[in-house]
């Protein structure tokens, strides 16, 4: 297990996508498509023969020196650090990048990318927000069709239905293993920490699925064998970090402060579907239908059929959480808005909760640890 984790940690912590660059240099025809949070149709990218790569800000490795002249102080870090990566030539391995209708700064970032990096193919995907409408599936199929053509232009490879079905099947297996990983965390959190599962998953956004899938399978086998003793901690659901990602050290700090994080929304766009995407029939329709009817509840998706406050309560109860921790990226407007409704719903449901703000580049965690420890103590001994 240490081998697998060690490799993942190395991949994640290497500077500026080193492993992706190495992969790209192996073949002159290799193409890489960056995927900004939250959800990108990675099956389409894969079927077009390109590598989908998670471009999710600069973490704690990037000092913002140029991007803050383009985006103001009240804009979240992931927007600025992603632009900083581009302005400091650290995204030159990309052939294209996908942005999505998740929030206003991300939408404007797509335009700023298009102007500043004319050699890069920048695409903006508009996901439907009227999920109750029967017209939404039809619309989303046309949008995915448009992206399929764009990818064909970038890679020079047409995507046939059969190829796309194969990619869907492969990613179904991959997501299935990730669901297993989360199931394991819920049933035996003493065997696999949230920080470890985050590293495993984050590495998967930086390498081909064909390489990552065996790593996941090994990890699952080995975790099940780990000797571990359950400690006296509270069981927590973490919500709010669906876009900008917290530092691994912060996740560890939450755990060390006395929490088992049974579930979270880290990198949720890469997991996205609650079950397998249909592998037969029209593959674009299968992806569209899964998006509309079988994707996770998330702050950037406004599904009136299943209001998020009720979804959160349902999830907290389903995983057996004693409490909910809101882990919101600083200035993340969708998450901050959700908090107002979530707080109300949790108070009505009698579920304790704690609100924490983070930034991807924070590196001192004493204050957060102290806050969480107090919260945990109030629950264990209060």
């Amino acid at each position, binding site marked *: 297990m240490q081998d697998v984790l060690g490799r993942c940690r190395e991949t994640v912590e290497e500077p500026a996508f080193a492993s992706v660059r190495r992969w790209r240099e192996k073949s002159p025809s290799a193409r890489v498509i960056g995927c900004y949070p939250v959800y990108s149709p990675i099956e389409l990218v894969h079927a077009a023969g390109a590598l989908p790569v998670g471009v999710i800000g600069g973490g704690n490795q990037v000092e913002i020196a140029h991007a*803050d*002249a*383009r*985006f*103001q102080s*009240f*804009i979240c870090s992931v*927007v600025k650090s992603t632009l900083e990566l581009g302005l400091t030539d650290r995204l030159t391995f990309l052939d294209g990048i996908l942005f999505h*209708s*998740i*929030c*206003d*700064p991300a*939408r*404007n*970032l*797509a*335009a*700023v990318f*298009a*102007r*500043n990096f004319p050699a890069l193919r920048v*695409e*903006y*995907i*508009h996901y*439907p*927000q*009227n999920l*109750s*409408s*029967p*017209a*939404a599936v*039809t*619309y989303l199929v*046309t*949008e995915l069709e*448009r992206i399929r053509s764009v990818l064909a232009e970038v890679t020079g490879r047409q995507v046939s239905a059969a190829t796309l079905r194969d990619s869907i099947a492969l990613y179904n297996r991959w997501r299935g293993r990730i669901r297993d990983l989360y199931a394991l965390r819920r049933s035996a959190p003493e065997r696999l920490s949230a920080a470890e599962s985050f590293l495993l998953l984050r590495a998967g956004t930086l390498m081909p699925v064909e390489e990552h899938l065996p790593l996941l399978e090994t990890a699952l086998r080995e975790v099940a064998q780990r000797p571990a003793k359950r400690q006296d901690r509270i069981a927590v659901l973490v919500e709010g970090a669906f876009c900008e990602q917290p530092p691994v050290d912060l996740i560890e700090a939450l755990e060390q402060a006395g929490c088992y994080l049974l579930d979270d929304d880290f990198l949720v766009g890469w997991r996205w579907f609650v079950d397998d995407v249909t592998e037969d029939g029209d593959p674009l329709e299968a992806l569209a239908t899964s998006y509309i009817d079988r994707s996770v509840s998330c702050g*950037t998706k*406004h599904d*009136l059929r299943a*209001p998020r*406050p009720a979804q959160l309560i349902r999830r907290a109860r389903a995983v057996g959480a004693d409490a909910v921790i809101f882990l919101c990226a*600083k*200035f993340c*407007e*969708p998450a*901050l*808005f*959700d*908090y*107002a*409704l979530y*707080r*109300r719903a949790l108070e009505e449901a009698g579920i304790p909760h704690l609100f924490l703000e983070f930034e991807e580049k924070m590196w001192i965690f004493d204050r957060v640890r102290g806050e969480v420890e107090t919260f945990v103590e109030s629950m264990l001994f209060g």
Partner: protein
Amino acid sequence: MADPKTSYQGRIHLLQKELMGRYYQELTTAATSGGPPAAYMLISGNPVELVRAFGMLPVYPEVNALQIAVKKQALPYILKAEELGYSVDNCAYVKADIGLYFSGRQAPFGTVPEPALILCNYVGCNVYLNWFEHLREYSRAEVFFLDIPFVRDPMAPRPEDLAYVVAQLRELIALCERITGRSLDWEYLRHICALSARTGHLWAQIKHLTKHVPCPLDAYFDAVTLMGPLYCLRGSEEGLHFFEEAYREVKERTELGLGPLPEERYRFVIEGPPPWPYLRVFRDLFSRWGAVAVASTYSTVGGLWEFGFAHDPDHPLESIAQHMLYWNLTNRDLLRRYQQIRRYVQEWGAHALVIHSVKSCRLFSAGQGDMREYFTKTLGVPTLLVESDLEDPRYFSEAQMRNRIDAFFEALEHRRLVGAEVRP
């Protein structure tokens, strides 16, 4: 330096006050003693024509929020929302409106009725979705999210997007029929679209008159006066009448060579919403330099009539969809906005660009540093970027604002003296 009087002494300001007063009276009556069902909507490219065809009362939380700010009453409402869990970093329009909702919907200018329909026209602004989702949670009213695909490729508006929006408008019609208990009168809808088309045309003509030297009305500080009736009364006879009056007056001023200031020394384009709580203060900071806004992006959030759009009574749903998809500022990307501003600078003959960056509205502000980069470095247009907010009075610092604006115009004066000015 003499500080000239900067108010626009025309009939239309008085007429606007009267009309908006009547509009708020109508809302108050509906709230207190019953009236037509209220439909909450957003300003950016909206389907008010359809709502009006059902006899529903259009209510705009954005307009309510800005009216509260203009009356310098926003802070208590904002604080009330923050007590409920809203963040200091959330849009203050939303917070003022939520604060208002939990204050019995009683504003300083009237009472807002409970919604019968929460109609979220998702045109560009992602916060709209949160805002109306929250109102729905609190009010439990009927809700419809009218999803408008963002303009995102050169083919815009794509036929697929148009078909999607029209399909949703048909679903919306069915919902309005259920709420009001009456069927859509297509003839009446066509009539309303014809009124909107004429109103939009007059508004467009007024926008083009501001190319004139001197500029007959300030296309920012005076244009906002016209925006109230444009949104709250578009598609009605009285809305049209107002714009006929307004056009006559602006035309007359153009012919007489009258402008809002005694002397027009600088013409500028302005980007971003105004600081409503300090509108007059902000205006005066420009007036003292003889600076007049000849064009503004803010006055196009609800529609881009000046670039050729008109509702088509023969194709009501398609033209409503076109309006929402393509013919407004907010559903277009930042680069299209750069081109719009560039066109203003060139065709409206401006010396400078002023960017008012507001924290609340990230749709407008996120990335405005890049805009400044483009206009100064690529195009060589003198550009000033100042920051405050559209609603929250805590973000406005008059002294700092004055320093920045003075320094900018001093630099322009210097360029003029040495003959290095950008000629409009």
